[in-house]
């Protein structure tokens, strides 16, 4: 069976991808430029027996999706910068309590109210370190409408399997851009579910890791009565401040990500023979980068291209692979230099780096990147 | 005759078929049960509630209901009023 072709906006593709992944609960709050995700799901969720709710604020929306996920429903919220800041409190709660959920941040200019209708990629570091305390972070950054669909599905899959929140970082350009996409037939994309307990309720411990570092998660109301708290807790779920229990639990939360890099990390590396320049980019800036690389080639300059789809955990190995080959890495991003620092950290001086940065509400153009390529060639 | 016996963490005071249990480990000595007992059955002793006059107990249950600490249980005769 072939898929269904539709002409979708990125935000609509995200909502459609969520439904495909089995999302049955959405809570949100209106915010430009992400609102179409909510509007789409307000229409569609009841038709599949799911629930949509517009909450009183961004904090409440994040809280509600965690509540729904504890009942066993795959849950989504969507937002943009100012709202993303407000999500941080309960994002940390979901990290510590290990409740799967997906947060879409259609990035816009900031700080503060910033540029509501202008694109940006300036929440890269907030996606990594926005909530307080050490915590795992997973962020995916698609660069096309089709990829928003598939990465939304993947965001749910990873979140379910690893019991941790996953952030989908899109931006105003790809969120509002329309492209023809194919919605794959049911069953074509693999859908993962969270691990659920196989032991009887009286033997269930919500954070029991005897079978692996992802503890099975019971649905509230299914007969497994247990306690969930945002305090550090032991395997029974009850609070503890015993140092010998807290340290390994905190480390395990991180290990869920670091021991599953194969599952999470996704990128494309386009290699040109003998290229001495490379570009690392993501999201809509990757589209401009691709065009700039073609233009450079016409001028006889070969440029390698690493397009990151997973931003966190950062694909360090891929950056090192590029740095081992080229002399100069250009990092175009719609911020004043966030991802470039992670590239520098990863490659530890193996190559020079230079950014192409723009925060004026207009996209980085291929010519801007081409100019930089010419400068360093 | 009323008699009190300590069983583990509980002091059991019995009079006829009426029984008042004080779980001493839970009792924080707040005095609420003592103060609001309408017939003055309870006293404080060494910062814990002590069942001093079980024979006067009417099993109104107010000590148990108001105790914030789950420390006192009135296991009654089932008959309200003074036990014979």
């Amino acid at each position, binding site marked *: 069976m072939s898929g269904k072709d539709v002409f979708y906006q990125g935000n609509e593709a995200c909502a459609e991808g969520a439904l495909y992944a089995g999302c049955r609960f959405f809570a949100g709050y209106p915010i430009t430029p992400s609102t179409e995700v909510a509007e789409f799901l307000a229409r569609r969720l009841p038709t599949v027996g799911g629930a949509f709710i517009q909450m009183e604020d961004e904090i409440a929306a994040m809280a509600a999706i965690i509540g729904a996920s504890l009942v066993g429903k795959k849950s989504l919220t969507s937002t943009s910068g100012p709202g993303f800041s407000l999500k941080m409190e309960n994002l940390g709660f979901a990290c510590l309590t290990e409740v799967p959920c997906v947060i879409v941040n259609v990035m816009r200019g900031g700080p503060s109210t910033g540029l509501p209708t202008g694109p940006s990629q300036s929440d890269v570091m907030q996606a990594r370190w926005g909530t307080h305390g050490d915590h795992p972070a997973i962020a995916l950054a698609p660069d096309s409408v089709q990829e928003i669909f598939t990465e939304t599905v993947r965001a749910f899959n990873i979140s379910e399997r690893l019991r941790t929140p996953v952030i989908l970082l899109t931006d105003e350009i790809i969120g509002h851009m329309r492209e023809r996409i194919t919605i794959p037939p049911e069953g074509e994309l693999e859908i993962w579910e969270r691990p659920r307990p196989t032991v009887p309720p009286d033997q269930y411990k919500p954070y029991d890791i005897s079978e692996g570092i992802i503890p099975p998660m019971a649905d509230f109301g299914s007969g497994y009565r247990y306690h969930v708290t*945002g305090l550090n807790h032991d395997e029974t779920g009850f609070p503890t401040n015993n140092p010998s229990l807290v340290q390994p639990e905190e480390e395990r939360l991180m290990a869920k990500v670091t021991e599953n890099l194969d599952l999470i990390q996704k990128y494309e590396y386009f290699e040109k023979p003998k290229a001495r320049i490379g570009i690392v980019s993501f999201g809509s800036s990757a589209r401009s980068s691709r065009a700039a690389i073609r233009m450079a080639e016409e001028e006889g300059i070969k440029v390698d291209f690493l397009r990151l789809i997973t931003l966190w955990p950062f694909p360090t190995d891929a950056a090192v692979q590029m740095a081992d080959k080229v002399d100069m890495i250009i990092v175009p991003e719609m911020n004043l230099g966030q991802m470039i620092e992670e590239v520098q950290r990863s490659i530890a001086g193996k190559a020079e780096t230079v950014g192409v940065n723009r925060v004026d509400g207009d996209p980085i153009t291929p010519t801007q990147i081409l100019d930089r390529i010419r400068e360093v060639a | 005759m009323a008699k009190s016996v300590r069983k583990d963490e509980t002091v059991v005071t019995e009079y006829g078929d009426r029984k008042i249990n004080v779980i001493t480990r839970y009792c924080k000595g707040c005095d609420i049960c003592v103060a609001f007992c309408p017939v003055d059955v309870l006293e404080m002793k060494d910062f814990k509630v002590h069942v001093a006059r079980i024979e006067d107990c009417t099993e109104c249950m107010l000590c148990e209901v108001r105790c914030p600490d789950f420390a006192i249980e009135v296991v009654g005769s089932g008959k309200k009023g003074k036990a014979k």
Partner: protein
Amino acid sequence: MAFNYAEYIRPGKLPHIWCPGCAHGTVMKSIIRAIDRVGLEKDRTVIVSGIGCASRMPGYVDFNTLHTTHGRSLPFSTGVKLADPGLNVIAVAGDGDALAIGGNHFIHTCRRNIDITLIVFNNNIYGMTGGQFSPTTPHGKLASTTPYGNPDYAFDVVELAMGAGASYVSRSTAYHAIPLERQIADGINHKGFSVIDALCTCPTTYGRRNKLGSAVDMIGWFKDNTVGIKAAGKLPPEKVEGKILTGVFRKEEKPEYCDEYAKIIEKTGGRS
């Protein structure tokens, strides 16, 4: 006969963390008896809290329990309830949790009329952090952050809930633990959002600073300074003046949120 609290308390969790004379335990017992009275199934009951002294309550009781972030018990509860409307959802919160940091959620949950029962453990202070004034600390009273007297004015939980559209609103006190139990049971049975203002005491951080006497004095104060709303109508005005009114202030049949959403699902031909 003694009430068998052990049936509802998780083994090994007592004694609880609350200070000597803190009435939170009394309110918790009223909640347990109310749940027993209504006959809620433990597996199908979720108790949700935020942060603070009162919010430690769910940890002690044997249900599906969720101890969330400060002020957020109601939006978490809303997610739980809407995701599975068959669950019984009870939220517990202190006055600061429910009305200050959680104030926005409070009024909007009232407005939404979703079938959740909220019990506000109202002791006029932030106890967990050591006695800072809360939205229900009366004007002029002392707290660690109002060392010269509270310049703020207090919220009246009942009036706030009614103004915001809650369909069941009542008030009782830790002294009146049996009427409180009845109100909570009534609130659980009520289809819609129920707010029960449970007046209780913090002898440690509020009573002592304001010279309100012992835990006993503070509990006894409720006896002398409250009047039931039914009785209040019959008493001469001087007997009612300055007293706190208790009882059921509103019990109104009104379409409930999950029921309304179920109609939307039906209208759109939705199926799960």
